[in-house]
């Protein structure tokens, strides 16, 4: 198994733009949930060797206690290894263990304890450094808390930190967005994810706001690319920037259409060409694990090429040309339109193609 994703669907409150599987006010179920995760992991036949990466995503994983992570990591170590060598907390083959965190949801001691468990990458949901915007987004923290949290994480020994930022917020100006970028760079993280806000159906934002003007979105996106690359970050995926060698190894597995196992409510898996997912509903997940009836969605096996291409092209280095066999006509059109270009043995998006990625991707599905 290449990558393991563990979903933690708990939040202090639900953000106004969020359509992920996460629940506010259900923290009482955390112990039961971790037990269920452990149980689910136990049912997996994972082979030996261990995952190269583990990602605790949410929700807000830092709402859990260090002992919960200990329990999970121990189980991972056990199921991936022969029983005789069981007991080592660290998963030897695993080079990257990421945990997502929201500012203010863990103190220095908790961060330290997490680091001690072998968790070596922290992804902080900062989203904005503008308190007015943070309130509008429905975030639980302010800008100062985010900065303090970042410093605490550094002090706790995290040497690989990502910050999430969102742009094209309702009413946000380009100057405000540039200020967010500047403040992020002042913190000097190893990695930055910058996302254009998507207004998702069923969220409080959906009824309230419409998508920002395209020209505004484009200007903000360009500002991010220009500012961050000038500061020494490599723009390696549509929304992701990293210092050299600090690309997120776990997410690279997704974009390379690799194998990953997802556990927990709503988690998705992709193993040897099959995709499936767990039930989204927390209670349903719990009861099904308890009764040994964790029925996931029926595995889907489909032509992997469209996914390989549209995921692979998200990476700025592109994708080996051999993956485009059978799409010669599409490739030719896209090159003629200036959206795609050959680069060595790869095809990759041009700058224009980067802005119009969906037009490119849609050609291959």
């Amino acid at each position, binding site marked *: 198994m290449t990558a393991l994703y563990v*979903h933690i669907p708990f939040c202090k409150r639900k953000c106004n733009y969020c359509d992920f599987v996460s629940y506010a006010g259900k923290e009482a179920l955390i112990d039961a949930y971790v037990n269920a995760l452990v149980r689910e992991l136990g049912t997996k036949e994972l082979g030996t060797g261990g995952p190269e990466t583990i990602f605790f995503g949410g929700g807000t994983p830092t709402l859990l206690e260090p002992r919960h992570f200990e329990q999970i990591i121990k189980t991972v170590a056990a199921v991936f290894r022969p029983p005789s060598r069981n007991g080592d907390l660290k998963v030897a083959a695993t080079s990257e263990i990421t945990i997502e965190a929201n500012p203010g949801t863990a103190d220095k001691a908790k961060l330290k304890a997490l680091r001690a468990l072998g968790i070596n990458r922290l992804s902080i949901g900062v989203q904005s450094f503008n308190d007015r915007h943070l309130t509008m987004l429905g975030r639980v923290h302010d800008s100062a808390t985010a900065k303090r949290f970042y410093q605490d994480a550094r002090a706790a020994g995290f040497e690989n930190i990502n910050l999430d930022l969102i742009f094209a917020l309702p009413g946000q100006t380009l100057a405000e967005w540039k200020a967010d970028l500047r403040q992020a760079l002042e913190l000097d993280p190893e990695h930055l994810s910058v996302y254009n806000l998507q207004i998702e159906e069923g969220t409080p934002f959906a009824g309230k706001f419409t998508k920002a003007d395209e020209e505004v979105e484009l200007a903000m996106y360009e500002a991010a690319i220009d500012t961050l690359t000038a500061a020494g970050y490599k723009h390696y995926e549509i929304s992701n920037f990293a210092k050299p060698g600090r690309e997120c190894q776990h997410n690279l597995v997704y974009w390379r259409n690799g194998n990953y196992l997802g556990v927990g409510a709503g988690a*998705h898996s992709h193993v040897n060409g099959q995709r499936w997912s767990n039930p989204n509903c927390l209670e349903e997940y719990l009861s099904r694990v308890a009764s040994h009836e964790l029925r996931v969605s029926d595995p889907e096996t489909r032509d992997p090429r469209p996914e390989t291409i549209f995921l692979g092209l998200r990476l700025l280095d592109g994708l080996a040309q051999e993956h485009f066999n059978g799409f010669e006509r599409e490739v030719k059109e896209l090159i003629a339109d200036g959206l795609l270009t050959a680069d060595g043995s790869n095809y990759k998006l041009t700058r224009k193609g980067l802005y119009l990625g969906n037009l490119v991707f849609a050609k291959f599905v």
Partner: protein
Amino acid sequence: MLSKIRNFCIIAHIDHGKSTLADRLLEFTKTIEKRDMRAQVLDTMDLERERGITIKAQAIRMEYNGYVLNLIDTPGHVDFSYEVSRSLAACEGALLLVDATQGIEAQTLANYHLALHSNLTIIPIINKIDLPGAEVEMAKNELVHTLGFRADEILLASAKEGRGIAEIIDAVIARVPPPQGDPDAPLQALIFDSHYDSFRGVIVYLRIVNGTLNKGDKIRLMGTGKEFEALEIGTLRLDLIPRDTLAAGEVGYLIGNIKNIADAHVGDTVTRTKSPAPAALPGYQPIKPMVFCGFYPINGEDYELLKESIEKLQLNDAALFYEPETSTALGFGYRCGFLGLLHLEITQQRLTREFNIGLIATTPNVVYQVNLTNKKVLLIDNPTKLPDLSQIESIEEPYLKVSIFTPADYVGAVMTLANDKRGTFLNLEYLDPKRAVITYELPLAEVIIEFHDLLKSVTRGYASMDYEQVGYRTSDLVKLDILINQEPVDALSFIVHRDRAYYYGKKMTERLVKEIPQHQFSVPVQAAIGGKIIARETIKAKRKDVLAKCYGGDITRKRKLLEKQKEGKKKMKLIGRVEIPQEAFLAVLRLDQ
């Protein structure tokens, strides 16, 4: 036996309750048991149910107290006025149904006049008296003062609640005269409807006017001259009930191995090959389509499917005219002719729904008469066929006399609209202090383009209209061409009055900019007359369209999103490098929305 037969129909404005009353009559006479009732039995097509109109007439025989009551249904839309007139000609009586909440409407009056013209005995009925908004006295007054009925002739009913039904049946028997006709005379039977059955061929609905039709008779259709054998004849219940003879005064059906519905056209006369009638019954008219448009498959591969589907529709719709045509922009398709805009829309929907064809319908147009400088005359049913201006002496277009019924408050608005649409005022008459009839002559071309919708909108839905053709008039007409990304799109060309060309050019370009999605390059949309650009708009280039987030949990969802995006493209027609959605080709119909 003739004395025991009553042939009648129900005439009414749309939604005044015709189908519901028919249902009650069938129930009351126990023609159908209540438990077998599907609401509104006489409307069989889904589209009819949806739109609340009856498209194809049918008939049903009821038996009550020793009487045979043949109810002949009539199409309820002005597009089908010829079919209505033939159904009426098969009857001796008509129930004139008026909605107590609406009073007399345009089609009430139009149908009333048709019924009078056919010498029918008319029984006025005020329906929907159960509704809270019912104004029975108002409706009564209109019937008395506008149509000249006596107050004591008027029946009151609520078809929905089954009130007044016995009185209606009694009135049919007492007031409608029995049919006249000589069973021993040479056969004359009026075709008032026909439909195609995939198992049995064409089923002809007819009223025997004179003579007797026997099973096995060799017959001739006097209009088309085609001959057939009466393989099966009979009467109409919910099913076909075979009989050996149908005599003068009776209503029934005939099956004769007729393969093509155009051979058994409504209004034609059936006679016997041996000792035929000396003359056909009066009133027969060959079909004359009034409105034309092009139908093109979005995907070229669907051309065969389109062909087969139109053929199938035509089996049951003799009024549907079609012939192959080619468009530079759209490729191979069909030019189709219709009785009116409703007929067009219904056909388009049936092709899309029943045959699942991605279809582009081009802007509807009328038939223009082009007088050339060389004194020849051309009839043009497609704007692209308009010859070069230098060869044209003059162009004539069909005109209608349009009667519009409106509450008095909206008289001004209606007149402004009619004037805008190049109308010539004829008359304004008040039915009562609150309601008026305004009569205009209007070019058919203006009436088929959004006139009805605009009329409804300026009168808050209260106005109704009816029309009749009044022939051709010379107009100063020009062809307006539309260029998308510098290429002329022939399917978007249309003919307009010169004074209105700038207005339409501007509106069209504005509309198309809304209908055509953004591309990665900017797309100019221009309107031109004879090569001269008169309006221009630009569809801005798409600048950013990319999924910000795509991680392990998103992949299936994102793939579906991309597939949907691609599916959407399949519903568009690629012209040059520009993808144009179906709706854009009907943009001219939606200029004011």
